[in-house]
């Protein structure tokens, strides 16, 4: 996983509440057995005028001219501004994969759905919760200013706007540490292997019916 340091990135809008994972990456693309390559199909139904299929040549498809991510001014965006309950719906990790593959490294919203929120951290994508009023302010400023960039400092837990306003955000200390160092969750957990084994033996003695049944 890529470590997350400081990010100074262009912001782009996804201006509606309850954006679910079906909107983020429609189900026909879930059939892939790989982890990469989902970026061209991020927000597929909104982004293109036709119906996308896993084998479509996305470069040949008609773009929806009304969809903000297709506007010239948002090209190269790394920060997504979103509304409440972003990422609701299924647990598909394809959603953060699509967002990161597209180039996003952080999402700012008033709230996130639980599973999506934890899936983001596992994929080097930083979900930032700011108060709804602040998010609205950021939206307004972004719409008013072409080339609107935000500075995100994970170490300091701050978002800084071009005018110098600084907003602090909360982040789980463990998640923060992993993200800063680009640490792999599994490797970390396996360092606890002796503790897991001890627990397992105790649990087996206590609940033997849970073990060696499915063989």
């Amino acid at each position, binding site marked *: 996983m890529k470590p997350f340091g400081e990010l100074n990135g262009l912001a782009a809008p996804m201006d*509606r*509440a*309850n954006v*679910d994972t*079906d*909107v983020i990456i*429609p*189900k*026909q693309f*879930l*059939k*892939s*057995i*790989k*982890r990469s390559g989902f970026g061209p199909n991020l927000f597929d*139904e909104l982004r293109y005028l036709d*119906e996308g299929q*896993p084998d479509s040549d996305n470069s040949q498809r008609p773009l929806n001219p009304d969809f903000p991510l297709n506007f010239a001014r948002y090209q190269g965006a790394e920060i997504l501004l979103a509304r*409440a*309950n972003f990422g*609701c*719906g*299924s*647990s*598909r*990790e394809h959603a953060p994969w699509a967002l990161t593959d597209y180039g996003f490294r952080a999402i700012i919203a008033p*709230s996130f*759905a*639980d*599973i999506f929120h*934890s*899936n983001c951290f*596992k*994929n080097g994508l930083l979900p930032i919760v700011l108060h709804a009023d602040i998010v609205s302010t950021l939206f307004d400023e972004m719409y008013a200013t072409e080339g609107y960039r935000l500075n995100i400092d994970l170490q300091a837990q701050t978002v800084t706007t071009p005018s110098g306003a600084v907003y602090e955000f909360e982040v*789980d*200390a*463990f998640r923060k540490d992993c993200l800063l160092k680009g640490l792999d*969750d*599994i490797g970390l*957990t*396996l360092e*606890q*292997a002796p*503790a*897991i084994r001890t*627990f*397992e033996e105790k*649990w087996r003695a206590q*609940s*033997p*019916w*849970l*073990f*060696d*049944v*499915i*063989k």
Partner: protein
Amino acid sequence: MAGKTLYDKLWESHLVELRDDGTALIYIDRHLIHEVTSPQAFEGLRLAGRQPWRRDANLAVPDHNVPTDAEERAGGVAGILDPVSRLQVQTLDDNCEAFDIVEIPINDIRQGIVHVVGPETGATLPGMTVVCGDSHTSTHGALGALAHGIGTSEVEHVLATQCLIQRKMKNLRVRVDGRLGLGVTAKDLALAIIGTIGTAGGTGYAIEFAGEAVQALSMEGRMTLCNMSIEAGARMGMVAVDQVTLDYVKGRPYAPTGALWDQAEAYWRTLHSDVDAVFDREVVLQAQDIKPQVTWGTSPEMVLPVDAMVPTIEAQADEVSKNSVKRALQYMGLHGGQAITDIKLDRVFIGSCTNSRIEDIREAALVAKGRKVAANIKQAMVVPGSGEVKAQAEREGLHTILLDAGFEWREPGCSMCLAMNADKLGSGEHCASTSNRNFEGRQGIGGRTHLVSPGMAAAAAIAGHFVDVRELGGHA
């Protein structure tokens, strides 16, 4: 000291390690695997040169992509027409083989939707931690288990370490007093709860469903209820263990027997919230107020009793809800003030991990008996949740009743719940569906899903539009 909730007990019994920062390492007893969210996890194991921690903790079954058409199904994996679906199912077979994980293959009689298969085979037991790369894993909480969906990275994490890094949720009790009326089912209860607390109402909480109406539910009904916890924003929902649970579990293939059963039963009987347990939040509903429910919009919280009118934009309190109602009405092709019973339907789908168990099929058959599907319904399909459910329904002759009425009787799988296989809605089509999500495009691009109970879906198929199943008669 205050007593413990059921969730507290399940959490504490699986705690390997609590860290200073409040995260915890939780031991996972059962990991269920299907073909959509596992390939990248196995790919990850391979890339890192890792092996599963404990093979016998895992059970795999393909469900999302398997065809439900008997002819296509007969050809097994090789017979799956869609090459991408075939590749996913084949990849699951290959990965299970390579990593020595037990798989119930496509045409095994036990195959079915993973959330039907788990409890049915006894792979899910009370007191367990159960995870699966699928958000409806909350279903298994009906057995008094701590069960929730995980993402693919976590699938890999569980495979490699038998543990998950978690943070404890808050406790929410949803108590339903009194008894549900005739013709009002667990599905209506689930929808009414979501209508009350909203799709984000359970976010951050583990829900325990309790109260007289919940205790009166069968195991199937409890699974329907817990299944939809995620639609209320909660990763997990659960019901305390009681005699109904024990009777359901006894005799299942993977359930303990003999002295081991006695030992397990003694422990399982402790799996309920203590009388003095403290919940962070409690919501109380009165069962007798709940009528059969129908969703009219594009979120499960956009739900109303069948005798209601579709809401108007003007009646909404603020801009955000005005916008969302407007958008939903537009997508659904409805106008505010229209009676729910005036919504014309094109298709009917009875199935999914929410409502495809034997009780659901019985409920549908009871309504369909001696009647015919209306002429305007292009397709009414019944998709049993597993091969075992299908066989049981056939032993009871339910398939004949349904077929005589004009329903299709399919092979088990997820089917039109998410339209990953060939079963899909056409654009603009309205579907009465017993599944759990009415999001835009969920059952096919442009498709319009209305969530209902199996009885309501069958009644809608017969009438050609929504009707109160209680007026049609024949309901349970």
